[in-house]
């Protein structure tokens, strides 16, 4: 037989065989992708912040389609996103527990003493590399504003060497939480009325030496709280927000005034109310 014919038949045959197998395989083993996935992905803000507990917005969208996931987990999206998700998926609408960031330090340049005079690069990340920063207190706000630069909403301002969150602008996305090298910024439910502005786990005497506005773990608030919502954990007052009614008794009795009271409702709540 003609050698050219043989080779052509051989290669064509193998090619056709491979093609047929691939076509059959792609039909038999096709994976159905839900057509709702891109639509749901469209509703989500796309910040991929992970506040919902899933790996980005895609992960949350996939989990929503699979079911058994609540629609109110997206904090940056707030009530508006939750409402649209509920309508899309035909699930019951639940109010989003909006979060708001809070700087757990009250040590401004007057209250918290410096350990050394820092003259390096003016970022918290750089200062924190050098013995944990220039402050005497190991959990103090360094005041160079890494958090303020990380905030896309301009919700953090540094005043008197201390970062402060402006709740009205905060969406609770948590970018500042990861930007802070000292780890003293936390997100909390924005319904709370009181918060402890200190993160120091040092003993009372050491806190006293370093800062006039720190929690010295005197237990006054723990004893006075009518709901029993405050406990001392590692020399620091911790408020259980499930029990707290926001009466403000702890704010009155705190000798160093490190428990702050106020309206912490964030931007997403105000936006959806308006």
């Amino acid at each position: 037989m003609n050698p050219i014919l043989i080779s052509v038949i051989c290669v064509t045959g193998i090619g056709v065989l491979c093609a047929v197998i691939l076509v059959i395989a792609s039909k038999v083993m096709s994976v159905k992708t839900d057509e709702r996935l891109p639509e749901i992905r469209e509703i989500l803000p796309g910040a991929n912040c992970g506040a919902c507990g899933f790996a980005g917005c895609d992960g949350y969208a996939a989990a929503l389609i699979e079911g058994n996931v609540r629609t109110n987990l997206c904090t940056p999206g707030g009530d508006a996103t939750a409402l649209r998700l509920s309508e899309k998926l035909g699930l019951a609408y639940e109010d989003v527990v909006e979060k708001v960031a809070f700087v757990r330090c009250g040590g401004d340049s007057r209250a918290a003493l410096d350990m050394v005079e820092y003259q390096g690069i003016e970022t918290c990340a750089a200062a924190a590399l050098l013995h944990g920063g220039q402050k005497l207190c190991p959990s103090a706000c360094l005041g160079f504003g890494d958090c303020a630069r990380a905030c896309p909403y301009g919700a953090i301002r540094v005043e008197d060497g201390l970062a402060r969150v402006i709740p009205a602008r905060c969406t609770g996305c948590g970018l500042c939480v990861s930007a802070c090298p000292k780890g003293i910024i936390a997100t909390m439910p924005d319904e709370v009325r009181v918060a402890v502005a200190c993160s120091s786990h040092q003993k009372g005497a050491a806190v006293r030496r370093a800062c006039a506005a720190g929690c010295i773990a005197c237990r006054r608030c723990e004893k006075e709280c009518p709901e029993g919502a405050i406990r001392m954990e590692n020399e620091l007052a911790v408020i259980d927000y499930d029990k707290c009614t926001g009466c403000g008794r702890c704010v009155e009795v705190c000798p160093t005034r490190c428990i702050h009271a106020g309206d912490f409702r964030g931007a997403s709540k105000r936006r959806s109310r308006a």
Partner: protein
Amino acid sequence: MIDYRGLVVILVGAVFVNNYVLQRFLGICPFLGVSKQLSSATGMSLAVIFVMMLSTAVTWPIQTYLLERFGIGYLQTIVFILVIAALVQLVEIALKKYVPALYRALGIYLPLITTNCAVLGVTISNIDAGYGFLQSIINALGSGLGFFLAMVLFSGVRSRMEEADPPEAFAGLPLTLTAAAIVSLAFFGFTGVIENLFG
């Protein structure tokens, strides 16, 4: 009777002495492209090991029972490329359906190595060396492991180089290639190991 000693010689030889990346300079593209991070380097290497063994298992019978029988061994290259490409596609479809976790882990690396020259190189050199089926599989395994070794070693070298501050003209690819050459030089030290150990 299986010649275990011969298989060990083939395995060790494929990993160290005839290392595909550092001695034969095949598969340089992924070696330079995907070796920046250890995690992606291991992902790529695992995919390469898998595909090398699989494609050897398919191409060896095709060569022996089809091409040689009809006397058209010269079609080896084109037929092998065809079969390997289709095979990888098939594996990808099957993984997506039945083992989605592995599919996500191998991710983009699986289609990337479809037409990798190291894979084709292993299948063809199996034939050229006159290996039997078992020997070919062992050679493919060893070549894959050698690729894995080279990738892991080089990703370590590169992570050190990330922190270095070279002259501007050297930064990037020139320095990477120089480093690859030095790592390759180290592997030349294995030349003759087989003769002295097993000879």
